[in-house]
């Protein structure tokens, strides 16, 4: 009788898939860092209603939120080489780049941080808006500059407010990286597909890959709870 599950294959494939966990993690971490930078810049542009850039940012956020990540990955992967090629042939710009040798990881980073930047800009914007106006005024009153106020007073509080959201976004990102194989980056999902095809044991390898994503996400969640507790200490009231 056909076995429901080839446990041996599952166990054998697990370490091979696990080897690619660093790829998954570094893509997630790097896109998150870039995404936060883009998100912060976009949030500030929108908060300060910068002319031209403000409406453009709104358009950017709307586009990203209104299209699937998978489509964005393809747009970047197929679109950017075309643009570069166009500029090279028409204007003689960027001639140092050979589009045939750009690693697909670069497109992954670009599309993921482009995507994250839009979502995080909304998170960061509402976190900044949640800090009461009065503290901006108190900062003005003692002569702090806008930048000082942001760095010393507002962003630290906004970060605390945004942290649970940032954490959830990070966990989603880890899971979303399972898409990167579509443009040829081998992460844990990509390796699972390769090994699954080799042994015609797809069910087994996808169980194996679940058993990597799941604990990783649980660990990150735990760590976030601890970090959040630490960082929120100033909100704890009435110890005196």
């Amino acid at each position: 009788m056909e076995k429901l599950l080839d446990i041996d294959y599952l166990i054998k494939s697990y370490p091979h898939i696990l080897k690619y966990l660093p790829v998954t993690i570094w893509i997630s971490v790097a896109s998150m860092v870039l995404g936060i930078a883009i998100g912060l810049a976009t949030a500030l542009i929108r908060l300060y209603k910068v002319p031209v850039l403000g409406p453009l940012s709104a358009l950017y956020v709307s586009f990203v939120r209104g299209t699937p990540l998978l489509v964005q990955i393809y747009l970047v992967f197929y679109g950017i080489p075309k643009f570069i090629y166009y500029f090279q042939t028409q204007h003689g710009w960027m001639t140092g780049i050979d589009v045939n040798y750009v690693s697909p990881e670069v497109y992954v980073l670009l599309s993921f941080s482009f995507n994250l930047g839009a979502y995080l800009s909304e998170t960061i914007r509402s976190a900044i808006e949640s800090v009461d106006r009065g503290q901006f005024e108190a900062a003005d009153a003692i002569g702090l500059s806008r930048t000082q106020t942001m760095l010393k007073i507002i962003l630290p509080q906004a970060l605390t407010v945004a942290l649970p959201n940032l954490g959830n976004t990070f966990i989603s990102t880890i899971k979303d990286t399972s898409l990167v194989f579509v443009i040829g980056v081998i992460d844990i999902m990509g390796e699972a597909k390769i090994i699954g095809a080799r042994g015609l044991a797809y069910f087994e390898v996808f169980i194996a890959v679940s058993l990597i994503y799941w604990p990783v996400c649980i660990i990150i969640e735990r760590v976030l709870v601890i970090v959040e507790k630490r960082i929120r200490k100033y909100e704890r009231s009435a110890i005196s």
Partner: protein
Amino acid sequence: MIQLQQIHKYYGSQHVLKGIDLTVGKGEVVAILGPSGSGKSTLLRSINFLERATSGSITINGRTVDAASASKQDVLALRLSTGMVFQQYHLFKNLKVLQNVMLGLTDVKKLSPAKAKEISTVLLEKVGLKDRMNHYPSQLSGGQQQRVGIARALALNPEVLLFDEPTSSLDPELVDEVLSVIKQVASEGNTMIIVTHELGFAREVADRVVFMEDGIVVEEGTAEQMFTNPLKERTRQFLSKALRA
């Protein structure tokens, strides 16, 4: 000395300050009274440009700044020569008490942390909160938070202190500890402008009382004269009604 000349403020078409003139001498304490909505906060906030007056000029310490054309440096100079105490305290919630007081010294005046800490500790001692300097604002009562607010305002050693209803957010039993700190600060020769609803306190602490309504100064005089024998009928009405409340 601080001098306000012909301060006008419009919010859209609403004329909120209608040509206020006010002079406060060095070391003088002036209380501003008046019904709510009369423009007291707006006046106080236009002195340090939290609101920009539509027209008029502000002179502090010999520097005259025209509201309509003030430069960034003008605004900064005014902010450094004024200290403001807010009704809702507005302490920096992510900073401990000591850092709240030190911030202007280290980051605006660029004093060394050691020097800033020394000055701030003295001020916290003055407001009776030296033992709370490593607490966060959320760990303090309203009265304690407001005393930190006062220490923060004093830190830059301003020419004039501006108080906007400093006790109006406090539970009644916490009002006195704040008022007594303000009285002490007044007795040390600080120049102060205080918007308040505490008439007894105003009478006790103020050298001069200004009564405002509808964006104009209705009447001003010494505290004694204003409370015992105001000249204008409107002042009389306001005070008797407020005193009964």
